[in-house]
Structure formats: C-alpha cells, structure tokens
C-alpha cells in the first residue's frame, strides 16, 4: 500500500496562536502525515502582552511534551491559583475566583448549600476561608497539588502567568525542532481555486507562491483568510461586552510575587495586573464609548504600583466571533476567529481547545463537511459559555458610580444567563454542563463575589444537625489554614523551580523591602 502524500498545512501568522498550532500539530500528528509550514513577518507585531492562563494550559503543554520548568524559566513564568477581583461587586470589595473547589474533596458540588445554611444561621465564616486555593492566594503561597485525592491539599489546580511573546519564541524553537518550516514574509494575496472556491495558495511579498491543502489563519484581528478572503461574517457581542480598547504597560516587579492575577474594576472597564518574574504586566481594558483614550491612559498610569518600564501601548478589539471558525479548507485560530476580553484569561484556552479539536477532526485533502460541522459546533459552545460567564461579571454588580456600570446593570442579558442568575439567586443552584469551560466552583465564586446572595439553599442541607455542620466547617477551615501555612511562599517556590535569568532574586527583593 502506498502512503498518501502528506497533507500540506499552512499556518499564517506567528503569534501565540500560530506557534501553539505549529507546536501541537508538529508534535502530535504522526510523522509523514503532514508538512507544516508557518508564515510570519517580523514587521507585523504580535499582540502578545503579559498573559494569564487557565489550568488547562498545563495539559496542553504536557500533551505536546513541553517541560514545565523550562517553559516557565524561559517565559519568566509564575504560578496562578486564581484571579482577585477588586471593586467588582461594589467599591471596596474583593473576591478570588479560585482554580479549585470550595470545601473538602468529599463535598462535591453540595458544599455551598451547607455553607449557605450555616451562614444564614450566623455560624459560618466567609466562603473564601473554605477554599484552599483562595487561602493560599491570600497568603501568597504556592506548592503543587497533593497526589492524594482525598487530601485537602489536592483541592486545587494551577495555571501560569507568562510573557506570551517569550512563549511564542519558545514554541518556535520547539516547533522547528519538530520539523515545522518557518517562512519569513508577508502575505500579499490569498488565491482561491476558481472552481471549488477553496483556498489554494498564498502569494508572498517575495513573489513566492505557497500552496497548501489546509490553511490555519492566525493572522490576528485582520482575519486575513477567514474574514477577508472567505467573507465569514463577524458576530458582534459589543452590546453585552462593551470594552473595545486596552492600554498595556509593564512595570518593575514590586513586592511579594502574588500567585494570582488581579483585576480591578475601573470607571469604564477594568485594570489587570499580571505578576511575572522580571516585571509586572498591567493594562486597562476600557470602552471607548465611556471614556476618552487619553483619560484611560492617564488613569492606568496613575494606578500602577511601581514605575512604568515603557510608554502605554494601545490595542483595539471588538467582542464577538466569526460565524464559523472553520470554513471550506481554512480554520481560524485566536483573534482571527474571535475575541473575548481577557477578564477570565480565556484567550489561550480558546486557542488550545481549538487546536485539540482540529487534531481530533483533522480532515483529509478533501474536507468532509461532517468534521467541519462538528468542529464549529464545539467552538460555538465554548464561545457562548465563556461569553455568558464574562457578561455575568459586568451585569451582576451593585456599582452605579459611572455610566458604563449603570449601562451594564440595566442591559438585557442573554436568556440563558438570565435564567442561570435567577436560579442561583433563588436557591444557590448552579448548572453543571459537560462541554465547555467553567465548572460550578467558578460560577459559585463569581455569583457570590458579584453580590448575588442566594435566598435559599437546597432543602437537603437541612438534613444535617446544625451543631455537626458548624463543627465540620470549623475543622475544615482550620485544616485549610494549616495546610496553606505549610506551603512555601510563591516567590521562593518560583525562584527555586524555574528562575528567569532577568528576575530579581526573592532574597534581594525582601531585603529591599526592609
């Protein structure tokens, strides 16, 4: 039997999305099945800023064979146990959305019902005290989760903060070592087959024609092939997610290294703070309809905890996604397929899940529509579920001190979300879905943090004597506190595990504080 000729896959664009695709296709597809070529131009900047991720990132790296410590060292990486949302529910509030559960491993998804009952009886501490990941975040501790799934120290997972441009550089090396061919150059024209309408080749500035069987569009917001050439429409979600600009600026590293991202609610959007080893990434995501650009930049610069290392740089975007992210023989990844603001660090996750779906559904030279249909169905679910989760942050707030927040409080939200909120408010009910991001603990922390206090709880929680419940809660809280105190400081852990060459040592940092 003769082997079929390899599938020629052409990736356009070498940002995080492009190199993640190259790395995964290069390492997970069998040798000889595909030739992978990535075209990028050094003249076109990538959007990569300090990036925060989700725990899924680890399984992506594991699957393609990336060594965690090396990756973190190279990208100035730190660990992340969650996101601290400051001033979101109301001014002066702070809650952590943890990468972990509330309660102990045996409690399943029922912990919060018991907690709500104890709370209403005046017998419970704030819910944060019962989440291992949150307590560790608050105390700036980090260690790997315990292997023993019954231990309280196993009730969390972790993600990374890293420099996305360095990650792309790292993956470029990784991919090239696995046979991915890189071509420097700008794409001048996308040529389609006049008969089938499929993408046939790309004409580069150098004059070279790059033909391919399958094209992965990682060209960023331009959406060069999917949007511009194939004309797949962009479905806009601005009415729910009105932010459309961001200023980003790095600052010197300051203070203890936090194992979490911080998101601070601002007048016309929110400000991120992402701690890397050698610097801190900051940015203000805002809606240009509610604040002027200069004013936004000034607000960001006035709200930094350390000297800026550069001038603020502005990015423009629009919330939404392309109607289909796989059309004909072209699949778009990352910004070329859609954009959701980085409030819940979902950008890299969306790229990762898209790549994994592409691999499972990889077509032959002639694309079977059933594969494309399934891919688009899966991506749609991902986008819509994340969208609803993001809208929840904007909509459920008691802030009314600026125009944006008054707008968001009053806006009509998708029915799917409206029903979810109503059920949580009524009885602490949280939908559990099989596909898509964000499990009940995530919804729980954001509902509560944004100020939705359930009026009731599941009647079964009444079944336990209140004295026993109170005692159990006390024990749990102590157990978590003890467990966290036994962990090293995050900064120390990082310095030992994956020190970045340009990072100040934790020792000198703490001396400086003295």
């Amino acid at each position, binding site marked *: 039997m003769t082997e079929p000729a390899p599938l020629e896959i052409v990736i356009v664009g070498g940002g995080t999305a492009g190199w993640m695709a190259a790395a995964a296709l290069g390492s997970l597809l069998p040798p000889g099945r595909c030739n992978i070529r990535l075209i990028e131009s050094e003249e076109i900047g990538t959007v990569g800023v300090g990036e925060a991720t989700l725990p899924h990132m680890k399984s992506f790296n594991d699957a393609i064979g990336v060594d965690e410590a090396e990756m973190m060292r190279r990208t100035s990486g730190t660990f992340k146990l969650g996101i601290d949302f400051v001033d979101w529910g109301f001014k002066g509030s702070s809650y952590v959305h943890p990468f972990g559960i509330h309660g102990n491993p045996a409690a399943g998804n029922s912990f919060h019902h018991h907690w709500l009952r104890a709370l209403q009886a005046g017998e419970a501490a704030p819910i944060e005290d019962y989440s291992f990941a949150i307590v560790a975040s608050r105390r700036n501790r980090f260690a790997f989760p315990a292997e023993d799934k019954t231990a309280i120290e196993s009730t969390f997972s972790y993600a990374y903060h890293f420099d996305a441009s360095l990650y792309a550089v790292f993956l470029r090396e990784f991919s090239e070592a696995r046979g991915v061919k890189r071509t420097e150059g700008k794409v001048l024209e996308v040529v389609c087959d006049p008969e089938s309408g499929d993408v046939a080749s790309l004409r580069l500035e150098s004059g070279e024609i790059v033909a391919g069987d399958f094209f992965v569009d990682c060209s960023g917001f331009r959406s060069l092939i999917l949007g511009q050439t194939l004309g797949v429409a962009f479905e806009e979600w601005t009415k729910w997610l009105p932010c459309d600009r961001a200023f980003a600026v790095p600052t010197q590293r300051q203070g203890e290294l936090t194992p979490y991202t911080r998101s601070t609610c601002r007048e016309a959007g929110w400000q991120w703070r992402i701690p890397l080893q050698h610097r801190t990434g900051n940015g203000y995501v805002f809606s240009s309809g509610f604040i002027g650009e200069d004013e936004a930049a000034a607000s960001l610069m006035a709200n930094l905890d350390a000297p800026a290392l550069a001038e603020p740089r502005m990015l423009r975007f629009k919330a939404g996604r392309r109607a289909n992210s796989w059309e004909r023989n072209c699949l778009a990844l990352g910004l070329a397929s859609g954009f959701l603001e980085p409030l819940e660090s979902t950008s890299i996750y969306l790229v990762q899940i898209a790549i994994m779906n592409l691999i*499972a559904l990889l077509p032959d030279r002639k694309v079977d529509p059933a594969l494309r249909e399934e891919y688009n*169905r899966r991506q749609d679910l991902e986008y819509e579920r994340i969208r609803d989760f993001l809208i929840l942050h904007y909509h459920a707030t008691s802030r009314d001190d600026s125009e944006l927040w008054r707008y968001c409080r009053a806006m009509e939200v998708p029915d799917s979300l409206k029903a979810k909120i109503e059920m949580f408010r009524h*009885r602490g009910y949280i939908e559990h879905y099989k596909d898509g991001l964000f499990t009940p603990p995530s919804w729980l922390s954001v509902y509560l943090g944004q100020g939705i206090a359930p009026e009731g709880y599941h*009647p*079964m929680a*009444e079944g336990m004597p209140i004295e026993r419940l109170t005692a159990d809660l006390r024990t749990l809280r102590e157990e978590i506190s003890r467990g966290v105190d036994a962990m090293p400081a995050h900064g120390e852990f990082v310095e030992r595990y994956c020190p970045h060459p340009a990072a100040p040592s934790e020792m000198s940092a703490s001396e400086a504080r003295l």
Partner: protein
Amino acid sequence: MTRKAERVVVVGRDAALWIVAASLQSAFGRSGVRVDAIELPSLLQEVDVYAAVPSLGALHKLLGIEESVLLAACAGVPMVGQRFSNWAKSSPPFLHGYDVERTPGGDVTFFQYWVKARLEGLKVGFEEFSLAAVAAKQGRVPFTEDDPNPSAASHGYHLHARGYAALLKQLAGRAGVRHRRGRVAGVERDGERIARVTLDDGEALEADLFVDASGTEAVLAGPANSDNFESWRQWLPCDSTLAASAQPLRPAPAFSQISAFRAGWVGLYPLQDRTAVIATWDSKSFGAAQMVESLPVLSGLAIAGDAVVTPFEAGARLRPWSGNCVAIGDSAISLEPLDAVQLHSVHVGVTQLVALFPVDADRLIEADTYNEVVLQHARNVRDFQAAHYRLNRRFDEPFWDAARDAVGPETLDERIRLFASRGLPLLFEGESFQEQNWTAILLGHGVTPASYDPRVDRVPPEEHIAKVQQRLREVAMEVRAMPNVEEYLAAMRRRQEFQAF
C-alpha cells in the same frame, strides 16, 4: 418571605409511584417534608417485565436496595446487554453490551485504534473487544459490587414487574412514606396550580407539590394533546405493545434478545422462572390478533397464558412540571420499551426533582430548569431508539423502508454523520447513553467510520497490532473469570441467606 415546600402528594401506581415516593422521602424526610402516596389500582399484569439499564443500580444504592434482595423479590436476572437480530436482512445479530469507560488513556479511545485496524483488513469485529458483549455471548456477568477494580462492563436487570413494584412499596413504607389506596374523583385547579385533589371516597388532598406518577393516564397532569405533547411517531413508528410469557431459556442468557420482524420487534427477557416477552409494532400494518397469533413463531417459544395489548405513542410532554404538578415517568415521557429504558424516565425525573426540589412553595421557578433538563434527556434517549429504526436494513418492507427514509431528528442525523466520518459518537448535554453505547449500536447497525483520529498513526504498526491483540486477550481472560448467570444468581442467594441469618 419564603414558605417551605413541606407537603408532597404523589398520585400514581406501580414502580413509578414507589420510586418517586421513596426517593423524595429519603432525600427530604429528615428536612421535615411529608410525602403521601396515593396508590391507584395497578395496571401491571403478571406477564409484565422491566428491563433496566445498569444506571438503575445507582438508584437502588440510594434507596438502599440490596441486589440479592432485588433479584430474589423479582425473579430477577442480571444482564450485560441486548442482542439485536434481523434488523438487517443479510447481517448476523449484534450486541449492545454495557461497557463502561476504562481508565482514560488520553484523548484517543481504543475504538479509534480498532477503526484503523479494520480499515487495514482486521476481520475481528469490535464486539470481540467489548467486555460486555463478549460476556453476554458467553452468558456471563461480572460481579461489580465492592470490587476495588470495577470491571469495565456493568450490568442491568430483567425484573418481574409486579415483584419489583411490591418490593419498592415495602421500601417506601419503611422509609416513612404514608400511603393509602384510592382513585382520583376530581382535580380542582387554580390557574396552573392544582388546589385540591379529591379521591373517590371524598377525601380532599392539598399539597405544596403534586407528582403525577400515574402512567399514560396522567390523572393529574391531564390528557396529552397537540399543544402540550410533542409526538415522535415519525421516528418511532410503532403504536402498540404487548406483553406475554413463555417457558424459561436454559442456560439463562445474559442479555435481552430483540428481534425485528416486518412490522416491529419482539423482545425476549429471561427471568428466573420464565421468559418474558414484549412485542412492539405498528398495528396499522399488522393487526393485534395477527400479532398474538404470530408470537410463537416470532419468538421461537411456546407462549403461555394471556398476551396483553396496550396502545401507545412515543413522545414527550413539553412541560412535565407545570404549576405545582410534576409528571414523572410515562405520564411525561413515552418511549418504546426498547433499550431497557422502561424505568429510566422515572429515574431521570426523580433525580432531577430531588436536585430541584422547591425551596419556596409559592414560587416554583425550578420548573423551567427541570423541564429543560428532563426533555434534553428524553430527546437523547429518543435519538438512541430512533437510530435502530433509521438504520435498519430490512429492504423492501414498507414499514422498514419508511423508517429508513424518515427525515431527522436533526440531532440523530448529526450523530450518524460524525460517526460515519470519524468514528466519534456525538454526545450532547444530558445523555443517558454514553460513547460505548452509541458506538455499539451505530456499528451494529452498519455505520462504518471512514477515518480515524490521526494520532493513531503515531503508534508504529507492530505496536498497534500488539495493542489490538493484547486487548483481545485481556477481554477473553476477564470474561472467563466471570460467573455465568446461574452462578451469579446462586451467589446472590447465598448472600441473602447469610444476611437473613
């Protein structure tokens, strides 16, 4: 101010009544909820049988029903799957075995490796790699309880329906359910809500929540009509079902036998003391008398006693929970007695009702969520049943030709297309049947994947062959270690005697 839902009245009969009443009582009894069961006259016949998928075991565990007690009370027989014969004229029977997922080994399932091997000429069918299917063919059943390394096959049951209802009734009583017999004389409504239910002896019952577990009579929910009921007849075309009884099969098979004939199908369900028979067919092309007459030939068994015919229409009530009344079981969802799901809609309904039991008797906003989840489950099971009809290969018989030509449901079309393309079973939210189940029936009915996951090719050919052979050996070995049905039953009897002692 919220007012707790403290009083539940369940009006119904047979297994559905007692499952609902016992489940609610054991979930909420300690929280101060009172459950009254109003028992309507039974519609069960001596010949009736319940075939149950393995998930029913989870309900039994919650209710504290020991398997040994269950089997003894219901002349029960454990079974690991169903065998489908004559659904394609020229193909041998196939087994839908109740496999469960093995320890996940990454994203690529073993099935994908089999697809490649098959495309390259492997002659061994996937069935031989299915632990449950192989066990079924050899009449064996794995012990699953208390096993630290649970088997990758699970088992369901064939149960004598009256025995099962009686066992559950006993259990409900022990759990604290109050019960009385009666008939409903009147239902007084206040808008969407039921204000009062009057029984034939004049007693009037009020409750925060009513449950209608009366079966297709839907005595509280009211008759189904085109406004409140979606019919699935275009995909599940049978309109009649019949139960009968025949002599026992020896040795006892570890599966139900489901054979298609020109107007429907006949199922054989081994019990300890007899073989229960169910036929489901289209009475427009095959009269009831003709059906009864043909039963011995179609089942290959001498039929003893009466056959009881019941009409039905597959479909679902669009709002099983409406006002303060929740319809559970056949009062809400009407499926064929195919694929061992007779008790499944009761199980799904009661599970969701426990999860969504009202917190405020005056504001039952849980209904929308309940209806959405229950209907999603029901439509998924409908797809599974409809797949048998849609994928039949009994050409040149009007009934089957029409079933094959039926359009939709769209979700089923999608499932078939994706499986045919890449061997991936497409699962939506709220699936009762999982990847293994879908794989078994789609393959069994002749949908052959045209391609497989590209990662399979990373395994070198020798390693691939070794992997396939090893799996075959493992399955054979594991099945050899399982008891046969008789041994299994004997072990259960010993256990029960020991417990009684």
